[in-house]
């Protein structure tokens, strides 16, 4: 049991590192205009949905800090990520079917965008409404599509959990 838990921690750490660097260097390549999918968010949701609220919250918070440290604003990503990680952990309790988890993921991605840009608007001159339709919706769709593609590839391993 302890070995499983330790293995899970290392797995989450490794995935976090991979997601972090892919987000930095691979995602900008597939960026469309200013819309880009959020691979780190997908990882946080995955951790929350499959490992629980605490791993989800902590992963979201820690990786969010790293994300913030290479962006102009500190604290915003960690805030939004830990809330979504927590939310995903709560969804886990309902023991949803695979497809239902996909739908829940869409809502969590949308929630992340809404929280992130809610805080972001205070540090920018753009209105929240404009940010929602110019950033939140496109990013949500793009991130969800990427999540779907990944879930197709990893469906077997995800359903086993």
């Amino acid at each position: 049991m302890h070995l499983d838990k330790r293995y899970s921690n290392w797995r989450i750490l490794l995935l976090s590192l991979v997601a972090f660097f892919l987000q930095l260097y691979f995602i900008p390549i597939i960026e469309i205009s200013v819309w880009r999918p959020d691979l780190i968010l997908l990882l946080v949701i995955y951790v929350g949905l499959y490992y629980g609220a605490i791993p989800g919250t902590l992963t979201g918070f820690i990786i969010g800090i790293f994300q913030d440290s290479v962006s102009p604003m500190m604290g915003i990503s960690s805030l939004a990520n830990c809330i979504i990680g927590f939310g995903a952990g709560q969804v886990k309790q309902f023991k949803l079917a695979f497809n239902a988890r996909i739908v829940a993921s869409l809502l969590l991605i949308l929630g992340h965008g809404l929280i992130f840009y809610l805080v972001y608007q205070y540090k920018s001159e753009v209105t929240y409404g404009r940010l929602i339709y110019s950033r939140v919706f496109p990013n949500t769709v793009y991130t969800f599509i990427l999540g779907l593609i990944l879930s197709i590839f990893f469906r077997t391993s995800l359903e086993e959990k």
Partner: protein
Amino acid sequence: MIKFLNFIGGFRDALILAICLFLSFCLIIYSDHDPGNPFRYLVYNSVGLVSGYFFKIDSYFDLKDELTRLHRQNMDLAGKNMQLQDAFLENIRLRKLLEFKERSTFQLIAAEVTGFNPHQIFNGLILNEGLRRNIKKRDAVLTAEGLVGQIVQVDEYNSICQILLDRNSRISAQIQRNRELGVIAWDGGVNLKLLYVAKTIDVLTGDVVLTSGYSKIFPGNIKIGVVIDVSKETEGLFLDITVQPAVNFNRLEEVFIVKEVPGNAP
């Protein structure tokens, strides 16, 4: 105490979330753009370290195009570099000539060597100055290094200079060290001979040979060359002296034509 801990444990998820939220808010409020933040510094450095490898991998996609572009750029730059080197060397030569002209007491006319004389009769250079600049036959030609020869043919725009390495060339010369007189002539190869210097005269290798100034063509004290070999093993009364010309005739590009020799005008 245990009950309290159990109670807290029941809200563990929410408690951790609350702590994370609190820390996030603290970060939002207090750490606006702090470039000196050691954590930021650490992450930036780590990211920078990894980014080098990622950029390399990224460049593999268009490596061939990049290589072709760099080859073209390299060729272009090599061409420009050659032009610049030419310009640089020309600049050095011209500066040298200009300095020589400024310190010279002669009236000098600069001319470019445009080719070698095609006639077999004498070894000569074609210069791009002629009658329009009042160039005349028997005007002396020299460079900053030393004597080149004399003008033997002239038309409106060009002239031909007979160089020292010509079988008809004879120039009155003297050894700088002991002022002994002789006549400079071509040795048939790439050097000159200093003729009519008696065996009793002390001539050493390294002695500088100058024009004597007794000619109406060549001004005095113009360097002709340096003695590189002296031999007494000859029949007759004179030494066999070989002189290396001061001027490299294969690399001549600009020369001066002497128009007026102070105190020795023709």
